[in-house]
């Protein structure tokens, strides 16, 4: 699915990355804890989170996250937006809560980048 479709499904506002809406995504990871994102998120996945500080962008850069979906209508600071622009990481904001955001994407075919942490813990 393209980021543009993600945007439509989540009725989201694009804050950064208008030029990257054609990007293909297949998987996602959702957490408010960057430590867990670092442990489990895979390259090319969407990151669904309620955190909006610049560390979300740094974490996404390190992990090659395809795009960040900020849930619960959370809006990032100008500093966070600036960093995302600099590192070319799209930010979409949706008013849906994390559970609804994940559910809407899942029913349209997006799956977790890891299903269970005990059987897919390939550190790659």
């Amino acid at each position, binding site marked *: 699915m393209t980021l543009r479709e993600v945007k439509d499904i989540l009725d989201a506002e694009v804050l950064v990355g208008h030029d990257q809406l054609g990007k293909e995504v297949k998987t996602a990871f959702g957490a408010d*804890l*960057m430590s867990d994102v670092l442990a489990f998120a895979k390259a090319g996945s969407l990151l669904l989170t309620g955190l909006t500080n610049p560390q*979300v962008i740094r974490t996404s850069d390190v992990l090659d996250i395809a795009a960040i979906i900020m849930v619960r209508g959370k809006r990032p600071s100008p500093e966070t937006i600036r960093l995302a622009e600099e590192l070319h990481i799209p930010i979409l904001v949706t008013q849906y809560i994390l559970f609804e955001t994940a559910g809407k994407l899942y029913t349209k075919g997006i799956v977790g980048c890891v299903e269970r942490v005990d059987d897919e813990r390939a550190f790659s």
Partner: protein
Amino acid sequence: MWKGLTTNVLSHDAAIYENSFPVEGGTFDNAGHVSSQIKALLTRMKLSKKVVRRAALVTYEAEINICSYANRGRIHLRVTPEHVTVEAIDEGQGIADIELAMQAGYSTATERIREMGFGAGMGLCNIKNFSDFFRISSEIGKGTHLKMVIRIDKDFDGI
């Protein structure tokens, strides 16, 4: 705490790139800046995405630790045809019980650190899991020294 490699294997490797990056301690203002820089550098060296990502990840966890717990520190990067070696050396409080600090879920993080999304007690575990070789040493009141090695091996696609 090497995960099975003798150090002389590494010293036979001639460095293609070597540099030290200062890291500010006690603040999140620039946290992750060095990791982004190192990631961009390794990408320009045309290392495989997998190697770059793992190197960036362990660097980032180590950088966050310096920002969280140390007064100041530096990250030393050394790239050879076979390995990416990242060392994080800080001046700070040090770690009293390394074995305990290595346990998943153990953390001494403050509220401020947790607000940034860290302090879940996963940092050192992640570093160990994503490195091919990992060593940690620490002295109370002086600081902590981490050494992480990522093997390039078959992933190596030319510099």
